[in-house]
């Protein structure tokens, strides 16, 4: 049965089982491969997207649970103020190595900053510890979030 979901401001019609995780709709049906598959059990955060601004693991989010909610992915996050700041900080601080987990890291960081513009170290740990980075870029992720939080200019 066809379902309509709103991804990055655009209505998309899809026809998959209602229990299909959002991750596979994004990647395989809609061809938006910026959101990554890591574990399929919400253990690593690579698949993080925003559902109405809330960081959400798309690998365990059934498509039937989305309803009229707004989905935002890494492809569009740069258009938000917090997203642009985070992306800039990520590049300024040279956070990225293999980069595979970074879509999810960035989505988690943007959600943190959007709801908490000046996070403490402990806030950062709480918001980011669900995102695994096998390259171990944690030190720089923390620095980059702090840099983004300190930049007042819109878009960094």
């Amino acid at each position, binding site marked *: 049965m066809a379902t309509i979901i709103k991804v990055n401001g655009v209505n998309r019609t899809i026809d998959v*089982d209602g*229990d299909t995780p959002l991750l596979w*709709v994004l990647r395989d049906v809609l061809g938006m491969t910026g959101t990554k598959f*890591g574990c399929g059990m919400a253990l690593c955060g690579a698949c993080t997207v925003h559902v109405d601004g809330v960081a959400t693991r798309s690998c365990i989010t059934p498509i039937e649970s989305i309803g009229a909610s707004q989905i935002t992915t890494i492809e569009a996050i740069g258009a938000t103020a917090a997203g642009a700041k985070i992306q800039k900080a990520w590049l300024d601080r040279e956070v990225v190595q293999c980069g*595979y987990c970074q879509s999810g890291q960035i989505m988690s960081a943007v959600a943190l900053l959007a709801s908490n513009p000046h996070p403490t170290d402990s806030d950062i*740990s709480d918001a980011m510890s669900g995102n695994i980075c096998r390259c171990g870029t944690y*030190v720089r992720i923390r620095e980059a979030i702090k840099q983004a939080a300190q930049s007042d200019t819109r878009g960094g």
Partner: protein
Amino acid sequence: MIIDHITSRSTGAHRSSSESGLSRRGFLQAGAAAGGGLVLSLNLPFAAGDAEAADVFAPNAFIRIEPSGQIVLTMPYVEMGQGTYTSIPMLIAEELEVDLKQVRLEHAPPNEKLYGNPLIGGIQATGNSNAIRAAWQPLRQAGATARTMLIAVAAKRWKVDPATCRAQSGEVLHPPTRRSIKYGELLVDAARIPVPKSVVLKRREDFKLIGMPAKRLDTPAKVNGTAVYGIDVRPPGVKIATLAQSPVFGGRLKNVDDTAAKAVKGVRQIVRLDDAVAVVADHMGAAKKGLAALVIEWDDGPHAKLNTQEIVGELEKATLNPGAVAQNIGDADKAMASAATKVEATYQVPFLAHATMEPMNCTVHVRKDGCEVWVGNQVLGRAQVAAAKTAGLPLDKVVVHNHLIGGGFGRRLEIDGVVRAVEIAKHVDGPVKVVWTREEDIQHDMYRPTFFDRLSAGLDEKGAPVAWKHRFAGSSIIARWAPPLFNNGLDPDTTEGAIDLAYALPSLHVEYARVEPPGIPTAFWRSVGPSHNVFVTESFMDELAAAAKQDPVAYRLALLDKTPRAKAVLALAAEKAGWGQPLPQGVGRGVSVQFVFATYLAQVAEVEVSKDGAVRVQRVVCAVDCGTVVNPDTVRAQIQSAIIFGITAALYGEITLKDGRVEQANFDTYQILRMNEAPAIEVHIVQNFEPPGGMGEAGTSAIVPAVTNAIYAATGKRLRKLPVDTAALKRPV
């Protein structure tokens, strides 16, 4: 964004030097490229034999300068996070006097003759932390040759002495007359002049790029979702498959009931193989749902009852008998007999998975007359050969496209995933992307081997070591992966870090017994030899310091007079870490120093052990001397990365078998260090102009003993088996 320009060059589209009209022999050759650019074909030393033997010049890499002035480099190494797509271009851009932004990169196609790695037996491989070591001289030479030729033709055009000209930012300048001309305007002339036999490399004090932190070229696309990894490819009409392989290695598929799976919406096909079954679907969601709906019966085969204890027991037994002598300095037996004190210990390290963030995947389209493969792999030449063999096609009918790699760590030095995907694709009409679930990825990895070690040392009256004996048993990856490099029972990888200690020991005797575990495949990891041996040797050195009742840093420093670079990094790390300063109860400092991958590295870890035995690494200080640094920011990043990777292994890493099955499956049972557990990390780089050493793996081996030595300092408990057993660290309340 440079990453937009990274393209995958297929074999068929690849233009060899002979095809572009180049056949002269020599270190570097120039000629007109199709499209009017200047091509410099670079022949790395190891390929010289081929180049001389054949009439066709077979270069190892290509530099192409386009009329726009853009430099195109075909990258013989793959980018998996280590920064090679920035540091390798830096070498050329430095000598060519161009901005890094002008360099465009292309993945090299599979071709061992052109892109074989001289430091890995000529195999087209990215591994062993050696890209910079292999490329340091020849790629700078390539850039300098191009620069010299461009200056020569500009000078000729202006009728001035070339010595009065210089190159800068992609232009040749003649300062006396304030004239300048862009490289792009000189290409036609430059392609016509002979290649100079020798060129002058820039003086180190004139370097503008090498040694300066450079922005990575591959990162902008990695923060906005546009970077394309192997798992992201989408050839038109592609189907998605996921698979279940025999849960016991060596088992067989007995029977599959696919009635329910076929009823799943989006499932297209069930593919049965001898030892695996795959579900092909419109999307991964349907493929996974279909896979879960299969009722599968396995024949577990000969390893149905295998468990880890049996494997380790065999290794332990093997260390009771002599092995191949890997190192023999002085007379260790004699020195041991006359020693005042004797110290003995056994150590054990476990199997480890790679757990790259990008799960194993490979996309394949098998047609009657050819096969196309899309993958991210560290051994592209081998991937092509394996695909051809599996598909039953000639090599030249197989095109392999390489991609960015979402974590390698040695996992993608293997081609098992390519073979599996081709096996499945042979049954599918059209392209199919085979994606391993995380569970399949971890339970069908090829693992860093387990090792068992037996050590003894003799100390003199003052506590100084006079004898060191080390015998260990375990798998040799090299013996399978590059058999010619396995000789007399030994290989250079398995013994690295055990036979080449930085310390001046009057006697040293090391033996290795190759024992291949049944029922579990082994492979490279973020180092094999060092990740095992440095833990063992640096823990044991700590034991000797304790037996001698001496400070672990002072004890080591006294043995390092003959290796001043090792001594310097150790002293620096200790100083920066505040070695000797008081720490709270339950917190300890541990140290390690090593010389592996041609890099000297010392680390001090500060570790807190709480009353319940929980271990937290609070701070790590690292001092590194890797010789000439190309991109210091990448050196820092690699060390930060390697430390986190090593702490993960020290605290959590362990693959175990029960009834032939890997017990760990996903990130809940195979844990990875997380943000809230990550220590503060300080990196101090020793500046010098020694030849460059490797950086990708060195930090991983050093941190493990630093952590366990710190646990000893904090608790008095010596851990000789990994991962850390926190239950053993519990203190009575």
